[in-house]
């Protein structure tokens, strides 16, 4: 085979790899100007994004399509154990990852250029993204876990890349410890599954279901894997690290962690757990006995997943209720959002998967945007406490409106992407009937609960009088004063453009979700039908 025909499908990955190498090379050559480095990252992610969208069959970009259509969602030959496979859902996730990376990269173009370490930041950013792309095409458990590790290691370093900030370092330390622990758990689980099946290929696992000599190994293996992956998805009670990390890391990094890397966990869950859930539901309950009893693996996993999902949503929201710091509040809210996504996996039907994916997209936009706004506001010199945001909406109407949109979307208010995703997800839950309806109820009640703290922020921003001598005022009055290096009212054009873009997307996709929902749904259908 020619190189192009071999490498072609990996165009996005290669683009990012090239970007990483280029950036580090330039760093060695002491070329570390923000514009150059950032430019590279932005371009690389944008191109990669374009080609992914093209591969998804978006006609206008057909030229960029590099993956032959037949090899997407191709059912593997019997007994074949490929390391990777292109699934349309995987491509969708690649698109989401790249979108997140692009947004963050673009926004970071307007960090104070005084701040050093731009090359490291962008290099690691691209590296992490590369790992994420690999996750999205993995079809082997070990390959998947290693890809996740690439992301994890890159993100440990991202959190600490300033090397000076004690908060950042502490965050990195916690991140690392818990991350390493979860890695151990996942690999241990993987080893048990390997023991049970004699293979780590996900197709084979799914096909085999629980028809094995030691079903208990399957159970334990999946349990360990669950624990290991739950760390990434920040499910309760595996979530504790996330808050401190999001809080401690630099704002752009938090944006990427919350908006980007966390989602690989979701996709990993799709890959790993749709196996048992679907296969066993399909094959019927070939049981495993512990105390003599014999129970179906899939359904009891669904119960476990459901329980964790509800727990996650509720705890996340309740924790966020009284939170005083903006970033921590957002961190908790993103924990609860993970719970919604888990609902999709619990139900495991194509509609639910689609809904969860849409929810992921929504979350990418909302959370990335929210953290970027936090960064921007911090750049205006406003403190970290929610109460420091008093009257911001009146001082900076546009910024305030954008943030309000993101919060309303998080709260699931109609005409925002956040509502569209929840709507589809919960419709899927109700459509699945049975006890899944209660998942929908729990989810909806939770979103109602979440309204409490989102509305509180709105209240502070719009109804409370701004504090005297509000630094944000400077920006507003002089219209683009503030630190001279930053145009656009002190935000910097990168941030300004990104935030505006996100706000627009939130509304546009909220008003007409069909654009994204169509592809996502068909992808979900293919994904579910694969090998089941």
């Amino acid at each position, binding site marked *: 085979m020619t190189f192009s025909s071999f490498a072609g499908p990996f165009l996005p990955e290669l683009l990012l790899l090239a970007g990483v190498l280029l950036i580090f090379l330039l760093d060695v050559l002491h070329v570390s100007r923000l514009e150059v480095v950032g430019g590279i990252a932005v371009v690389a992610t944008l191109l990669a994004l374009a080609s992914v969208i093209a591969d998804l069959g978006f006609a206008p970009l057909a030229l960029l399509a590099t993956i032959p259509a037949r090899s997407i969602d191709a059912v593997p030959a019997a007994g074949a154990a490929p390391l990777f496979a292109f699934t349309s859902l995987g491509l969708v996730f690649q698109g989401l990852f790249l979108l997140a990376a692009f947004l963050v990269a673009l926004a970071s173009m307007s960090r104070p250029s005084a701040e050093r370490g731009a090359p490291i930041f962008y290099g690691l950013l691209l590296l992490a993204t590369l790992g994420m792309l690999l996750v999205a095409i993995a079809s082997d458990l070990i390959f998947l876990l290693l890809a996740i590790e690439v992301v994890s290691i890159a993100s440990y370093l991202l959190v600490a890349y300033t090397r000076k900030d004690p908060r950042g370092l502490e965050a990195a330390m916690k991140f690392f410890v818990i991350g390493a622990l979860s890695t151990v758990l996942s690999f241990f689980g993987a080893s048990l599954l390997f023991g049970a099946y004699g293979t780590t290929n996900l197709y084979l696992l799914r096909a085999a279901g629980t028809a094995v000599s030691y079903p208990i190994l399957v159970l334990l293996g999946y349990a360990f894997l669950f624990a290991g992956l739950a760390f990434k998805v920040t499910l309760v009670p595996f979530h504790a690290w996330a808050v401190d990390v999001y809080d401690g890391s630099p704002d752009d990094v938090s944006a990427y962690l919350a908006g980007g890397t966390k989602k690989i966990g979701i996709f990993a869950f799709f890959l790993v757990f749709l196996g048992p859930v679907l296969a066993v539901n399909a094959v019927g309950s070939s049981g495993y006995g512990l105390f003599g009893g014999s129970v179906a693996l899939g359904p009891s996993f669904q119960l476990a997943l459901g329980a964790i999902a509800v727990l996650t949503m509720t705890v996340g929201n309740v924790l966020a209720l009284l939170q005083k710091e903006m970033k921590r509040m957002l961190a908790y809210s993103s924990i609860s959002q993970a719970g919604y996504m888990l609902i999709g996996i619990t139900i495991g039907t194509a509609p639910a998967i689609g809904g969860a994916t849409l929810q992921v997209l929504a979350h990418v936009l909302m959370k990335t945007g929210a953290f970027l706004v936090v960064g921007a506001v911090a750049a205006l010199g406003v403190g970290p406490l929610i109460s420091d945001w008093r009257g911001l909406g009146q001082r900076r109407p546009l910024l305030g409106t954008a943030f309000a949109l993101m919060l309303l979307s998080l709260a699931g208010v109609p005409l925002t992407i956040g509502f569209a995703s929840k709507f589809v997800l*919960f419709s899927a839950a109700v459509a699945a009937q049975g006890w899944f309806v209660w998942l929908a*109820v729990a989810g*909806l009640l939770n979103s*109602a609960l979440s309204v409490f703290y989102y509305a509180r922020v*709105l209240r502070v921003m*719009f109804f409370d009088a701004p504090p005297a001598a509000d630094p944000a005022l400077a920006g507003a009055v002089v219209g683009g004063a503030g630190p001279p290096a930053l145009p656009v009212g002190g935000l910097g054009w990168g941030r300004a453009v990104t935030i505006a873009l996100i706000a627009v997307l939130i509304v546009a996709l909220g008003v007409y979700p069909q654009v994204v929902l169509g592809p996502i*749904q068909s992808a979900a259908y293919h994904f579910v039908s694969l090998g089941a």
Partner: protein
Amino acid sequence: MLPWLSIILATLAVGTVATFAAGARARWVALATSAIFLAEVGLLLASYPGWPGYSGSLVPGFSDTETYSWISIAWMHVDYAVGVDGISLVFILLTAVLQIATVVYSWGESQRPGAYFGLVTLTCLGCFGVFVSLDILLFFLFWEAVLVPMFFLIGYWGGPNRRYAALKFFVYTHVASIVMLVGLLALVFYSGATSFDFSSVYAAARGLAPVVQTFLFLALFFGFAVKFPIVPFHTWLPDAHVEAPTGGSVLLAGLLLKLGGYGLIRWAVEVLPSGLHSVQPLLFVIAFLTIIWGSVLSLAQRDLKRLVAYSSINHMGIVLLAIALDSSLGLLAAVLLMFAHGIVSALLFMASGSVHHQYGTRDIASLGGITPSAPALSTMLMAGSLASLGLPALIGFPAEFSAFLATWNGLGYWVLIPLVVLVVTAAFYLWMMQRVLFGAKKGVPADAHDLPWYESTGMGLLVALTVLFGILPSLLVNVIVNSPIKGWPGT
């Protein structure tokens, strides 16, 4: 024919944006918007069977319908589907009237007028949407879309305790609408309707087992009951009203409360007949409870707005009763009542708002004898009170009379409860008038002056309508009965 409803929606949308942008001159833009809106609604009415001057045959079912696919995936089909029947038309008329009245009334609003009038217009847009949408998702979108502007109206322009009130209003009603959403989704997916369209849901839901219908009905009812509001889910209302700016209260009482009743009629009563049938007794109990509770509590209020708020609860109780009767006349009465209450409570809130502007307090106990200093104001307040206690020749009477007649026909002597409460209602309004308007001067500053022209104009419009429809209720009735329900001509 022209897509009237979309045109109106577009008008309002553009108007909203323009108003927000207009800043200091917002009120003019808002006025223009609402005037155009009213004109369009007039044309819509003129083209509708039942309205005087309509020539042509009766269109069965909904008219002016439009349907465009919105979300269409393998397992879910959502449309942008709008249309009107007699019932929704009446509510649309109410919306248009109240919008223009509110805009005129709050002409003097100086605090960020752009945002204020923009939000007012947006609220009306949302309500209009609710009244015309024939698709569950569309309905829910507008339903929720109403919350946000109202939240800001209360929270930014409101009284001293506005933050709490705004938050309470938002969360409370949001929870309700979420339960309602579950009900609506279940309605679609359990009935196996092919799409979220009213027509398909309506057709499919008939097939549901009575027990399922009951559960669905309860879920929907809870959602609507909070908006109504029905005891014991009413406590958000007094707070919201007391804190909201006058314009906010007007829209809140005049329009938002109607959403509940309209939703109940359109999406529960029509769609889930046997569900309604099985919960009827419960509804009756709740309705009576609400009726009594509302009026008894109004008797105990010292704050004008609180008083009106509780009387609204009482009226909404009667509406619920009328709806629950599940009879042709009851339905008619319910719609009439809601229209009447929309106009009258708006008038009353405007009046009490003006009292507040003029005398700096709404505390009944610390006011007295304001009539000499403000005859116009007291006339308005009097007119509102009398209409609200069901005086003939004012709009309240035909509505309440038909409601009672329907109750008598459906429930016999139970009608005594609302009838006796009628006396209590009269009692607290008279008591309020006696304290505030008549008697010795109290809390009246020396330089007390009468209403500014815009406030009196806004209220005058409503008073005029109160009289017009009080004397000629047939204007409304003939429109209402052209609805595809209860075997009326519109069917």
